[in-house]
C-alpha cells in the first residue's frame, strides 16, 4: 500500500518544528509502524536527507521506549505500543499524521524523540522499597494474599512509555505515578514507606511540571498495558490517608 505521512520534524529542543509531508510506497500490511518508518528512513538516508529520529528498542511492546502520536492518538489506533501496531490497520492511500508526545514535562529532543527523564525523577522520589542488597528476609517469611499480589502485578505492568501523559489534555502523570504507588503500597513489604512514598512521589510529579488531573480518562484509554483509571482514585485514597497520618503524627 502507499501512504502519505505528515511527520513532525524538529532539529532540536531549541529550534521550531513543523509537519513535513512524505510519501512511502509498497508498504506491506505485515510491517509494524516502526518498520514502515525504517523504510522511509532508508530512503531518506540514500537521498542525503536526515532520517526521522524516533525512540525504539525492544520492538516487542515491553521496554516502553517507542511512542508517537498517530492521527491524534497516542500509539495510534490500536491499544498497544507503536512497535506492535501493524500497517494492516491502515488503508492504502491514507494520510497519517505522526507527532511526538506533547507535554511541558516531556520536551522534544529531536523529531519524535522526547525527554522522559521526568518519569525517572518521580520514581527516584519514592518509587521503591528500601531494602539494601543482602538484608532481605527469607522470601516465604511473609505470605502475600493472592489478591494483593495480583493487584500489585496489574499496576507493576506499567512500561513508563508516557502515552498517558501524551494523551492527557492536561499533560498529567497521575496514571503513571499511581501505577507505581499502588504496586508498592498494597504489598506488605511496602508498608513501612507507604505514606512517605505517595507524598514524595506526588510532590515530585508536581515539581516536574506535569499538569493536574481533571479525570478525563484519556490516560487509561491510551495506556498500552491497560492500567485502569481507578488506579488514580486508589492513589488519591493513599494520598489522603497519608496526609491524615502525617497530621496525626505531627500532633503526636
Amino acid at each position, binding site marked *: 500500500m502507499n501512504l502519505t505521512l505528515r511527520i513532525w520534524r524538529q532539529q532540536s529542543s531549541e529550534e521550531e518544528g513543523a509537519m513535513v509531508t512524505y510519501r512511502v510506497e509498497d508498504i506491506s500490511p505485515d510491517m509494524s509502524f516502526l518498520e514502515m518508518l525504517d523504510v522511509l528512513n532508508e530512503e531518506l538516508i540514500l537521498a542525503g536527507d536526515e532520517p526521522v529520529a524516533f525512540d525504539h528498542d525492544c520492538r516487542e511492546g515491553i521496554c516502553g521506549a517507542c511512542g508517537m502520536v498517530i492521527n*491524534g492518538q497516542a500509539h495510534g489506533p490500536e491499544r498497544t505500543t507503536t512497535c506492535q501496531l501493524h500497517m494492516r490497520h491502515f488503508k492504502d492511500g491514507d494520510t497519517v499524521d505522526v*507527532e511526538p508526545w*506533547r507535554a511541558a514535562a516531556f520536551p522534544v529532543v529531536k523529531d519524535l524523540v522526547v525527554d522522559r527523564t521526568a518519569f525517572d525523577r518521580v520514581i527516584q522520589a519514592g518509587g521503591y522499597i528500601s531494602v539494601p542488597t543482602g538484608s532481605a528476609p527469607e522470601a516465604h517469611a511473609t505470605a502475600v494474599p493472592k489478591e494483593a499480589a495480583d493487584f500489585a502485578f496489574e499496576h507493576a505492568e506499567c512500561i513508563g512509555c508516557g502515552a498517558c501523559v501524551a494523551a492527557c489534555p492536561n499533560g498529567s502523570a497521575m496514571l503513571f505515578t499511581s501505577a507505581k504507588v499502588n504496586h508498592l503500597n498494597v504489598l506488605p513489604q511496602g508498608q513501612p514507606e507507604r505514606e512517605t512514598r505517595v507524598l514524595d512521589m506526588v510532590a515530585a510529579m508536581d515539581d516536574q511540571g506535569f499538569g493536574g488531573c481533571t479525570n478525563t480518562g484519556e490516560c487509561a484509554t491510551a495506556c498500552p498495558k491497560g492500567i485502569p483509571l481507578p488506579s488514580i482514585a*486508589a492513589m488519591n485514597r493513599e494520598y489522603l490517608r497519608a496526609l491524615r497520618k502525617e497530621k496525626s503524627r505531627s500532633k503526636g
Partner: protein
Amino acid sequence: MAGTGVIMLLFLVAHMLGNLKIFFGAEEFNGYAAWLRTIGEPALHNSWYLYIQRTGLVVAVVLHGVAAYQLSKRDIRARPAKYEHKRQRASYATRTMRWGGVILGLYIVWHILDLTTLTVNPLGKEHHPYENIVADFRIWWVNVVYIVAMLALGLHIRHGFWSAAQTLGAVNKRRDRALKITANVLAASLTAGFLVVPVAVMTGLVD
C-alpha cells in the same frame, strides 16, 4: 474542587426539592420560603441560619472557582503545544467543564440578583417568591437563560460527581460502574427537577 463541589451538590439537591413545593401553590411555597428563615430558631436569630448558609455557599463557589482557575492555569502550562492532528477527546461533559463552570458562575450572579436581592426581577416583591418566579418565567429570554444554565449544570454534575469520587479516592474497579450510574442519575434528576418549574409556568400549570 471535589470538596467544594460536594457541598454545592448537597445544597442543590435540597434546593431542587424545595423548588418543587411550587406545585402546592403560592401559599405553601411562600410559607416554605418563610420557614427557611426560621431554621435554627430560637438558638439563632431569624434569618441567621440563612446567612450562615449563604456565606458558606459563597465561600464554596469562590474556592471552587479559584481552584478551577489554578488547576486550569497549571494544566495549560503543562501542555503548551497542541497536537496538529485535532481529534475529539473525552466525553462532551468532560470537555465542557471549564466553560460550563464559567457559564454557571455567571448564572449564579444573575440568579442571586434576580431572586435573592430581587434587583433584576421583573416583579421584585419581597417575601413573595412564588409571584417573583412566575413573573420571571413569563419572559421568554429568562426561560432561555435558565434552561441553558440548567443543562450546563447537568453536564457539570455528570462529570463532576464521578470526578469528585475519583479525587476523594472513592472509586475502585467494583464501584466504578455504580458511581458512573449515580452521576448520571443525579445529573438527570437535578436538571429535570429544576426545569419542571419554568416548564410548568410556561404551560400554565403554575400560575
